[in-house]
């Protein structure tokens, strides 16, 4: 069964059709990439799936259940995590604390329990800290744990953001340009990382400009242009698709 199904999704801003009539589905345990020229509607599509925007038409089905129009925090609670194109660290918090925020939906202490620091709350806190440290370790940045996140190097911030998203224990991970601003070595590293994340059982949907990365790690690719889907298929098919070549290289 498809983990995520996008059904004739559309988003119009006034007269601008940022996304129109896009449909595709995402198999559990797969890596799927959404590519397309600038302004093709990729980030809008991500915002529709993660709840930042609500669609003008169409459906987003997660585990077969319609989730379009839900608030972002509810969608996160269902197990959909995301990263941002321009990294959004929580300023004034350490790398570890940033990742600990990711455990939010997997823990439950409220205002009163937190203030009184009940034994249950304390146990939960220990578990949150341990899990978050494990994730920093998984991403190879455990030694940055106590450093303020915004003062880390760019690549490390990306890793923290990824750890934070993984802390949510997502079934679906949305990555918005995970290789943006990285050099070729770091990009290759991110590629290996995404494959490892997939091997953990997380389904990945990514938006990416770096073609070598997309072609290497994706199981399937969707191509958008001016808000419409123009192709979908295996990387090898997409590379040969005349429509796609036309959009990318011009006629």
């Amino acid at each position: 069964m498809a983990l995520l199904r996008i059904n004739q999704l559309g988003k119009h801003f006034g007269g601008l059709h940022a996304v129109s009539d896009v449909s595709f589905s995402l198999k559990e345990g797969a890596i799927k990439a959404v590519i397309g020229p600038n302004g093709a509607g990729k980030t809008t599509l991500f915002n529709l799936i993660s709840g930042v925007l609500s669609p003008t038409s169409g459906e987003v089905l997660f585990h077969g259940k319609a989730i379009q129009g839900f608030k972002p925090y509810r969608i996160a609670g269902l197990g959909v995590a995301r990263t941002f194109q321009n990294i959004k660290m929580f300023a004034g918090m350490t790398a570890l604390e940033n990742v600990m925020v990711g455990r939010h939906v997997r823990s439950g202490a409220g205002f009163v329990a937190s203030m009184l620091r009940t034994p249950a709350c304390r146990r939960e806190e220990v578990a949150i800290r341990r899990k978050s440290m494990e994730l920093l370790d998984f991403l190879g940045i455990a030694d940055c744990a106590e450093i303020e996140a915004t003062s880390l190097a760019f690549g490390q911030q990306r890793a923290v953001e990824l750890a934070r998203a993984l802390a949510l224990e997502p079934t679906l991970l949305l990555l918005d340009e995970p290789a943006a601003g990285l050099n070729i070595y770091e990009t290759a590293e991110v590629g290996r990382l995404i494959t490892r994340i997939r091997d953990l059982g997380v389904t990945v949907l990514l938006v990416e400009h770096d073609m070598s990365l997309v072609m290497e790690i994706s199981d399937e690719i969707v191509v958008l242009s001016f808000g419409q889907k123009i192709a979908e298929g295996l990387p090898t098919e997409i590379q040969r698709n005349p429509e796609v070549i036309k959009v990318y290289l011009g006629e």
Partner: protein
Amino acid sequence: MKLKNLALLPLLAVIVLVQLLCSWTDSVFYLTQLTMSAYYSLLIIGLCVLMGYAGQISLGHAGFFAIGGYLSAALTTRNLVPFQDQFCVRLLDAAGCLTAGQDIYGEALLVVTPWAACVIAVLTAAVVAFLLGIPVLKLKGHYLAMATLGFGIIIYRIVLASSYFGEADGISGVPGFTLLPGLSVSGDFSNRAANYYIAWGFLLLAMLLLRNLIDSRVGRGLRAIHGSSEAADAMGVDTARFKLHTFVLSAILAAIAGVLLTHYNGGIGPSEASIMKSVRYVAIVAVGGMANLWGALIMGVILNFLSLRGLFGSYDDAVFGLILILIMLFAPGGILNLRFGGLRLLPNLIAKRKREGN
């Protein structure tokens, strides 16, 4: 107890030391202003969590203070004898919330007990904060400031215009509040030291609870909202609910401060509800460094103490306005973070120790 809460022990030592010093040097009158400062600081540390950590400004916290103070003052002084047969009054009576007595002219007097009045006052403030917070916290920046300012003005005009709340005279003759047998919040000179400890006890307790809160799942959620609301949302933090709960929490602390200070002073006047009071609280949180509970506490005590000692004379409000301007211009990180040639004005050892202790 976690190691980091031991940081409260030096404060406890200072509190005891100050009291002893005052009694040895025959200057116990200082304790009165220190007690009042502690109650104001109770409000200020609550506001600090709202402003510094949740990132929501409120220019209406004197309003919540006034709801607490005025309701407990009115309920414990206004005679209910003429309304004895009304349902509400009979209900309160049945619940044991009323106390009978005689006024100074020997007339029968029936008033609400301080405990019941306190509960009613604090609950009212909480409910008002909840109902106000739902629409208002959707606003950001200046719009939120304006909306909370509007709320503050409404409360101020209500207490000033209503005869139930004593109009411009306020309410006086508020009885003491017996918390426990032998432990009473009142302005009696004989109780001065005890009241000093009661006030600081409340402040320390609130400090402990708020520090726990900041360093917890909820606190991280709040700081995340402040850091990036969009990313906090994407991590599953229900930002609207968290902001609302923090707003209510800070209103509850403000109301408790209002209740206790009113019993301590034996009355309350409309100036406690004025906009300048709200501005003063915001200024103190800013001086303390916004996201800094210790800063808010220390500055809250120092500045309120100086103000209550009359150091600023009739320029009191002007001084706090000036402080706000200077802080915004020259030390937006708060006065404790001000650096002179690499040296901090007041070395923030506490914060450092906290980081190392974890």
